[in-house]
């Protein structure tokens, strides 16, 4: 009897350290979310999910010929700067920043020395220098000297909508067109998929004229022409002419991820086409996501400038 008891005790003592922890942790560990849609969000004025909501979730495979959903392009803030979609210093692939300088003092006349320079024509270079941005970036000037049309609540237009304040967008597909609804300025774009040709020599529009088609089951290609040359390409004041053509490629990676590639082609301003965004990530938001309103309201700007803007730039330091 004694031998058996000792043996039992010995067995329990050997097994217990291995058996007990898994039992305990199974009771205390939270089950990981099965889907992005399991995340709790505010019903109204929803806040987009952080990147942590996507780790540990295995998304369903990409649906065919389907971009629909509410997507967030903002991303998370990096250690050295604002979230990726905001793009305060210009198009993400060509920020107007010197290498290693994330927070420049501004005031440079041109972009000589930036980390990823653009292939300007002489006209492109001259038009760039005439544009005076007031935000971040090496060419930014004080508010009293700026001429950014968005500063007076003019529409950013296209492609600037993808290249600054690129936040929430909703994509809706109908039988013969795709709608892209943008949070910033609460505006929309229509992309015709009925096979029509792009217009030749159309009246300029802030957001241009777009047609699109599926190159394969998961890649939707959009071509846009007819963009008014009143608009800037990005927050750094990159110029474009009426001959600008923009190509967007939306690639549906899986249920929860889109990648957007934007190519700028304007032979009057640039000696060759350039990538403004390269597989830029967009993250699907949970069902029921309510997009917060984000307007440029002239009366809000008047109030701001009365209380902050004017006094801040009064008697600027020499």
């Amino acid at each position, binding site marked *: 009897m004694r031998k058996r008891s000792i043996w039992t005790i010995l067995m329990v003592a050997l097994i217990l350290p291995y058996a007990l922890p898994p039992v305990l942790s199974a009771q205390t560990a939270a089950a990981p979310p099965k889907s992005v849609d399991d995340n709790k969000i505010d019903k109204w004025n929803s806040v987009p999910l952080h990147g942590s909501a996507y780790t540990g979730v295995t998304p369903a495979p990409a649906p065919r010929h389907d971009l629909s959903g509410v997507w967030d392009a903002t991303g998370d803030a990096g250690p050295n700067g604002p979230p990726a979609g905001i793009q305060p210093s210009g198009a993400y692939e060509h920020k107007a920043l010197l290498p290693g300088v994330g927070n420049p003092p501004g005031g440079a006349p041109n972009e000589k020395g930036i980390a990823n320079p653009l292939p300007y024509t002489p006209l492109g270079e001259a038009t760039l220098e005439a544009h005076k941005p007031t935000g971040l970036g090496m060419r930014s000037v004080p508010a009293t000297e700026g001429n950014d049309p968005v500063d007076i609540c003019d529409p950013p237009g296209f492609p600037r909508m993808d290249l600054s304040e690129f936040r929430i967008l909703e994509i809706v597909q109908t039988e013969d067109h795709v709608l892209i609804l943008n949070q910033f300025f609460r505006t929309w774009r229509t992309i015709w998929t009925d096979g029509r040709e792009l217009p030749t020599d159309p009246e300029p529009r802030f957001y241009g004229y777009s047609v699109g088609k599926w190159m394969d089951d998961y890649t939707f290609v959009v071509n846009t022409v007819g963009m008014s040359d009143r608009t800037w390409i990005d927050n750094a004041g990159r110029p474009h002419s009426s001959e600008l053509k923009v190509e967007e490629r939306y690639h549906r990676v899986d249920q929860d991820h889109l990648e957007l590639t934007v190519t700028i082609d304007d032979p009057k301003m640039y000696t060759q086409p350039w990538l403004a965004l390269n597989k830029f990530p967009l993250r699907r938001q949970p069902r029921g996501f309510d997009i917060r309103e984000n307007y*440029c309201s002239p009366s809000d700007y008047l109030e*701001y400038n009365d209380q902050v803007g004017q006094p801040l730039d009064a008697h600027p330091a020499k």
Partner: protein
Amino acid sequence: MRPKLGLIALLAVCFLAGSHTLFAHHGNASYDTSKTVTVTGTVTEYHWANPHVFVKVDGKDENGSLMHWTIETQNIVTEVNAGWTKATFKPGDQVMIDITPAKNGAPFGRFKGRIVINGQTFKSADQR
């Protein structure tokens, strides 16, 4: 009647002529990013609005004189994503705020990092 109309028209022209200078964002060109100032005082106003959310704080300078500070940050959507709400500050709150000061020496600044409201640290996700 006519002189009044003329005056109004003149004012309207002046307003429109200067309109490009009336609206603007303030990047680093208006702020001295090499400096940090700590503002301690009482909140008098909190403007939860675009283009930039801003707070007004009555504080004292090193001589004990009353200073009316205006401290701004980014737009509402950015701040919401960083954890701010329309109720983050209230008039009467006792605050200590680190700011990047204006280049021109006026009592204006931009939120820079530390924010303490009524003794509690407020961790804003967008400050560096």
